[in-house]
C-alpha cells in the first residue's frame, strides 16, 4: 500500500485530496485541457436500508494489478494523456470518499469516455468488496455482476 500521491494507482485506508490528485496529474503534461474525475462516496441509503457504516476489503496485489491494467487500457484505447485510480479500504463513514478516478486529456470528450469506462471496469474486474452495516446487522454486498 503506497500513499504517496506520486503513484497513479493506490489502495489505501487514508482519505485522499481530489485537488492534490488533480495537481499531481497536471504535472504530467502542459497540454492537458480537460480533466474528468469521478468520486464515489458513501451513501446513507441502500435498497431502502439506512447504512451506518461501510467497510471495504481488497485482495492485495491482484486489486492493484487490475487497476493498473485499467489505467493502461484507458490511456491506450481512449487517447487520454494519463489516468489515476485510488480506492480506499477499511471502515468508511457516510459522505466520505471511497474511490477516485482522474482522467486527463487534451480535450474533454475522451476524458469523459475514459473515466466512465474505468469506473465500470473497476467494479467488474477489481477484487474489492463492500460490507454494509445497517440496523439489521452487517452484510457483504453482492451486486449481480
Amino acid at each position, binding site marked *: 500500500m503506497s500513499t504517496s500521491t506520486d503513484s497513479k494507482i493506490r489502495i489505501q485506508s487514508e482519505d485522499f485530496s481530489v485537488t492534490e490528485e488533480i495537481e499531481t496529474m497536471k504535472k504530467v503534461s502542459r497540454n492537458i485541457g480537460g480533466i474528468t474525475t469521478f468520486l*464515489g*462516496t458513501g*451513501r446513507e441509503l441502500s435498497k431502502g436500508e439506512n447504512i451506518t457504516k461501510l467497510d*471495504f*476489503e*481488497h*485482495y492485495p*496485489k*491482484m*486489486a492493484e*494489478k487490475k487497476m493498473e491494467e485499467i489505467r493502461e487500457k484507458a490511456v491506450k484505447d481512449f487517447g487520454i494523456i494519463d489516468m489515476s485510480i485510488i*480506492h480506499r479500504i477499511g471502515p468508511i463513514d457516510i459522505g466520505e470518499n*471511497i*474511490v477516485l478516478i482522474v482522467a486527463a486529456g487534451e480535450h474533454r470528450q475522451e476524458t469523459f469516455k475514459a473515466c466512465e469506462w474505468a*469506473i465500470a471496469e*473497476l*467494479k*467488474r*474486474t*477489481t*477484487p*474489492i*468488496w*463492500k*460490507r454494509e452495516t445497517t440496523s439489521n446487522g452487517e452484510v*457483504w*454486498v*453482492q*451486486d*449481480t*455482476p
Partner: protein
Amino acid sequence: MITLKYFASLKSVVEKEEDHLDIKNPVTLDQLSDIIAATAPKMGEMIRAKKVLISVNQEMADDDTIIRDGDEVAFLPPFSGGTK
C-alpha cells in the same frame, strides 16, 4: 503446497481466511474444486454454481487452469468496489 485464500463473505462460509493444501502432482481447477468440496461442501456448491470467481496467482482462472505446487488460488465473491 498451494495456498488457498478466501475473501469477504467466503471467510465465514469456510470459517478461515487462508488454507494450505499439499498436492503431489499438478491438478486442474476442476479437480481442486472436488478436493475442496470434500471437506467444505457449501463452498464446493458455490463453486459449482459459479457464484464464486477463482483466480490463480492473481489472474482469473477457469475449470481447465492447471494448478501447480506453490500456486496461490483465491476464491472471490462478486466484486462491489467503486460505487453504483
